[in-house]
């Protein structure tokens, strides 16, 4: 009798466990699919609006089924302002990424390999450049850029973009270099290589995934930046974010073209993000999480 009770108890417990696990799975996927919807719907809405003819874009109830057209994109491409701003952003952001890597990666190598006095303070100081609110940084640069004729130039914007990402590059790359065993360079030095050759031919290739991911994350942070463009450019060096902003501000908004401009801005970044998704955690956490 007692054993029977015990048996039925365990079997009912097991049943409970099974139903509970099933329930957990159902709840889990309901929540995750719900969030997927939250993530996707605004993007779907934006893209579908950009593919609707202007007259149809704002109709409510919405036309769920419509004949997609690239009309808005053609209109957009015919706006020289948009093309210039897009090209500006590509050139300025890409140049800033190259420059920030040239400045940041060697410094990160030194911070990783040498005993620097007050290393911890140096690293926190570097991080503190990120803590400075951009609006507080941009006031002095606004004054100085006017004096130096850097106002509304691409070079000026490149420098500002470097300032956003330098701390990120140094921190992430230091973490990556820390993970590369020093014995690699020592072996190269035994073979007669100088320290610099060891860095260039041994350490840099080993750190490639880190450089790749930090380059893309730097690209994104500069690409989405609005404030510097707003304050430091007026015509020549306008980035695409400022173009979109001034589009919002214009009196009669052509919603479907605005949607097309925003979509054009978002798509390259989505591709980049997916490309580095494995190293994203390492990059975004300033190198604190290094895995995979």
């Amino acid at each position, binding site marked *: 009798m007692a054993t029977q009770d015990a048996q039925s108890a365990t079997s009912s417990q097991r049943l409970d466990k099974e139903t509970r696990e099933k329930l957990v*799975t159902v709840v*889990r996927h309901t*929540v*995750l699919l719900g969030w997927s919807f*939250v*993530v996707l719907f605004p*993007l779907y*809405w*934006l893209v579908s*609006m950009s593919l609707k003819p202007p007259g149809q874009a704002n109709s*409510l*109830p919405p036309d769920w089924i419509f004949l997609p057209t690239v009309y808005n994109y053609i209109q957009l491409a015919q706006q020289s302002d948009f093309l210039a701003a897009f090209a500006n952003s590509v050139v300025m952001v890409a140049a800033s990424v190259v420059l920030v890597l040239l400045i940041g990666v*060697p*410094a990160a190598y*030194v*911070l990783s390999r040498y005993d620097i006095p007050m290393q911890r303070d140096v690293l*926190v100081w570097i991080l*503190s450049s*990120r*803590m*400075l*609110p*951009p*609006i*507080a940084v941009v006031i*002095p*640069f*606004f*004054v100085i850029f006017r004096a130096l004729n850097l106002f509304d130039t691409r070079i000026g914007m490149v420098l500002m973009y*470097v*300032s956003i990402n330098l701390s990120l590059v*140094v921190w992430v790359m*230091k*973490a990556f270099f820390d993970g590369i065993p020093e014995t690699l360079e020592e072996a190269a030095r035994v073979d007669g290589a100088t320290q*610099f050759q060891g860095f260039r031919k041994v350490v840099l290739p080993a750190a490639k995934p880190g450089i790749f991911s930090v380059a893309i994350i730097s690209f*994104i942070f500069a*690409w*989405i*930046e*609005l*404030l510097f463009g*707003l*304050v430091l450019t007026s015509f020549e060096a306008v980035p695409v*974010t400022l173009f*979109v*902003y001034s589009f*919002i501000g214009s009196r009669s908004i052509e*919603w479907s073209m605005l949607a097309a401009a925003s979509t054009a*801005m*978002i798509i390259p*970044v*989505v591709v980049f*993000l997916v490309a580095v998704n494995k190293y*994203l*955690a390492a990059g*975004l*956490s300033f190198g*604190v*999480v290094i*895995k995979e």
Partner: protein
Amino acid sequence: MSTPTQTETASKTPLTRVRDLWNDYLPYWFMAPMVLVMVMITFFPGAYDLYLSLIAEPTFNVFEAEFVGLSNFETAFTRGGAFHSFVITITVVVSALLLESALGFVLAALVAGVESGRAKSFYRVLFIVPMAVAPVSLATIGRIMLNSEIGIIPYVIETGTPFAAPNFLSEVPLLTVILLDTWNWTPFMFIIFYAGLSSVPDTLVEASRVDGAPLWRRYVHVIIPYMKTVVFVAVLIRLIDLFRTFGVVYGLTNGGPGTATQLVSINIYEQMFINNQLGVAAAIAIVYLVLVVALCNVIIAKVGFEGVWD
């Protein structure tokens, strides 16, 4: 003994001398550009903001500037609405940080528990996508979807529920801003928490499960303490970046209606470019800068960076 050295020095061409200089002082060459840029983007703006905040208006010759003491600060905090914008900023930063952390963690924990590998990587990749949306594009999306005349969301609320839709941009602008930022940046927390959760050894999770501890207690007492460095860093970096918020609010509401969403950064911008009060803008900027840097450094010092690097 000295002869070979002398001949060696004598035979050095300028090129090899440069090369030696390069190799002997390599760490200095490697550090110099970074230090130079860092000085330029940290000490210089701080000092210059302070200078601008103490003078009437900038002059060509810096020594001719008229010092006005703290009157710019006085203007900022009496007529400039500085205090109000600090309250707004803190409200946005704290609410968004809490929401993003909580949501990011729950999502990361849920995805980490998905059994099928394919479904797992599907969610993992999908959930990072909102980060690709620039704040100003998000403002565009917000303006399109929340618009009280053409917006799909008010329309769905009106037709699908018994409730009347609020005018998101004029009645609840602060909430709207917070929710949009949450949509935009929860992926940041998600991706770091997810990496942190995958570093928790299975044996640890198993052991706590055998103890029969309820789920929440397993997280609070076992899993989160194990990944506390990751949690700390994610929250700290998001906090730092939240103080930088500008584009989404400026694109969505321009700080309005009135000053309802006037973040400090927007207030400074308006003092500078709409009111043409450079000194007042610099005064608010220096207060903001000092407060944010001090807060972050206190957090770093208090919580400590042990384990963040070795």
